[in-house]
């Protein structure tokens, strides 16, 4: 699956990657994946799976999905 870390979320990736390819052996809760990757839940305000906005707590992801994550942005 492809994970997009929008805004400042790629600061939490050791390599500062905006787009991360992840191999998933089986479906898993999005929260578990975030925990594995070290991206804090508290920094995410919008999550979309395959282009549709989803509640983060309820979302599951699988190999082949595209997941977009965005932090709160404060104007500019």
């Amino acid at each position, binding site marked *: 699956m492809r994970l997009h870390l*929008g*805004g*400042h*979320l790629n*600061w*939490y990736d050791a390599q500062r990657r*905006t787009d991360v390819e992840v191999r998933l052996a089986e479906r898993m809760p999005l929260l578990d994946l975030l925990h594995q990757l070290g991206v*804090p*839940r*508290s*920094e995410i*305000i*919008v999550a*979309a799976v395959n282009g549709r*906005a989803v509640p983060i707590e309820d979302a599951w992801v699988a190999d082949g999905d595209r997941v*977009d994550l*965005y*932090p*709160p*942005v*404060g*104007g*500019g």
Partner: protein
Amino acid sequence: MAFGTTGRILWVDLTQGTTYVETLDEATYRLYPGGKALGAYLLLRHLPANVDPLGPDNILVLASGLLTGAPFSTATRFSAIARSPLTGTYGESEAAGFWGPELKMAGWEAIVLTGRAPQPVWIHIRDDKVEIRDATHLWGHEPLEVQTAIRAETGDKVTRVLQIGIGGENLVRYAAITNDLRHYNGRNGMGAVMGSKLVKAIGVRGSGKWIQYAHDAQPVVELGRRLAKGVKEHPQSWDLQEKGTPGITSALNAAGILPTRNFHQGAFEGVDNIKWEAYEKELLTARKSCYACAVRCKREVRVDDRYQVSDQYGGPEYEAVSGFGSNCGVDDLQAIAKANELCNRYTLDAISTASVVAFAMECFEHGLIGLDDTDGVDLRFGHAEAMLQMVDMIAQRRGIGNLLAEGVKRAAQAIGGDAHFFAMHVKGQELPMHDPRGKFGVGLGYAVSENGADHLVAAHDPTLANAESVSFKGAMPLGIRVALPPRDSSRQKVVNYTIAENWNSAEKVIGLCFFGPAPRSYIQVEDVVMAVNAATGWGWGVNDILAVGERATNLARLFNAREGFGRADDRLPDRLFTPLENGALEGVALSRDDFERALTDVYDLKGWDTDTGVPTPQKLDSLGIGWAAEAADVT
């Protein structure tokens, strides 16, 4: 004893061609320590009611903040303040760059321009030496040519030049002022006020240092070193350095609040062509900074392809990317960069200009204006060439550009029909590219702001939505305790809003950029308090700083009350009370009942009369500005 300011204001009487110096005492500075507060104080004290904003009786104040020029990140800002020709209200706009710090180093806290010069002039300031020079040969020329000419004339390659382009000369009501070609007092038409006075430029060079005005400079110097090292160690400042403001485009699109086709929609099908990744690949040539700032959020761009875009004027911020992009239905980044560059060459506010073009596009699509009106320009959404032609016509006041140069409020009145519904403004100032249907507090800021729709009035709601987030934790020392969803409209939301509004207002007094302090970025509240106290020796707490911001807002509010503005003017465009047509918030609209109730809560919490929106005598006395009610004739 030094207390952070130079203590001196330079008054320039352009009609007489004379100057004089006013010195303010420490007690006055404690109430009005710079920027917005000092400007509002001077405006209320010196400007009679009901002056023509573009006449000689208006005054233009250019005021540094208390910490402007201090050697740490984002302490760069100064305010331009006058009665606004766009709104008729108290007018204000901040800019960063290098000019504000240079003014302080030349020994001046502020410059006040009065009257009107008999012919175009520019003002040369070299420390105490001030000259009013002929600028006939500079009038009509572009900023790069003018800056080059002034630096040649002074023989000094680093004279900091603040100036207007032809947008200001032609009195476009939303003309900007630029300094160092890349930094803008964009909003409220301050460039038109400068143009009305026939002042082309102000060149400044100072030999002093900020530290000579500080009570104890050493802690501020150490803070500067710490912030320079720490900029990459904080997610928000790192992000601003990496991407700048264009980094937020796709996030807003995903949230369903990327203004699209004049705020009809909240998601743009062409977002992939205008988002940060495309910007970095297609436009970016360098990351640039302001004075002493490690954040380096300014973008430099260059295009030599379908369009020619110079690298001299600074790249588009998010506001221009969305304004000329999604909100005009244009997904061509090169055209967006060109529109932004034209605004910068002409010194037009990119936010208002883009909103005016989007308004004209919608009027065109609804048949309210036709090809006969546009000189044959096919002004439908998505037509990049048409958009660029409009920017040119506005700056030159040519054809329909002459009407559009008046702003959407006046243009809608002239066009008639449903045009008023397409005019996205508050008090005459066009909306920035943030949709209150997804950020309720931003809508309150638009409505309540003393100078019309403004997106920098308070922290944006998403940054205060999660109690565990970096941004929320950064705001807690201000007294913000309860995290709330972005669309929440409860009284508690209003509590958060009023605290955040006082903080943002204080930033405009102190001279800090929005991209420095928490909650937007990485300078912690306690470090701002420390820096203020090191500069002044006043021993203030955070509440004293919040009070500075609140006092400035109340002065501006009183100015507006004198000009007849009240609760009826604190409104939002009708379109925001209709549902978004697509995206994550499809079907979502603001509720009029929620908005009116929250507006009453704002007044109540701020100590303003809930029927009129005017500050009460008790509130003014508590802020130490009881005199201002009489000056504003609202006793």
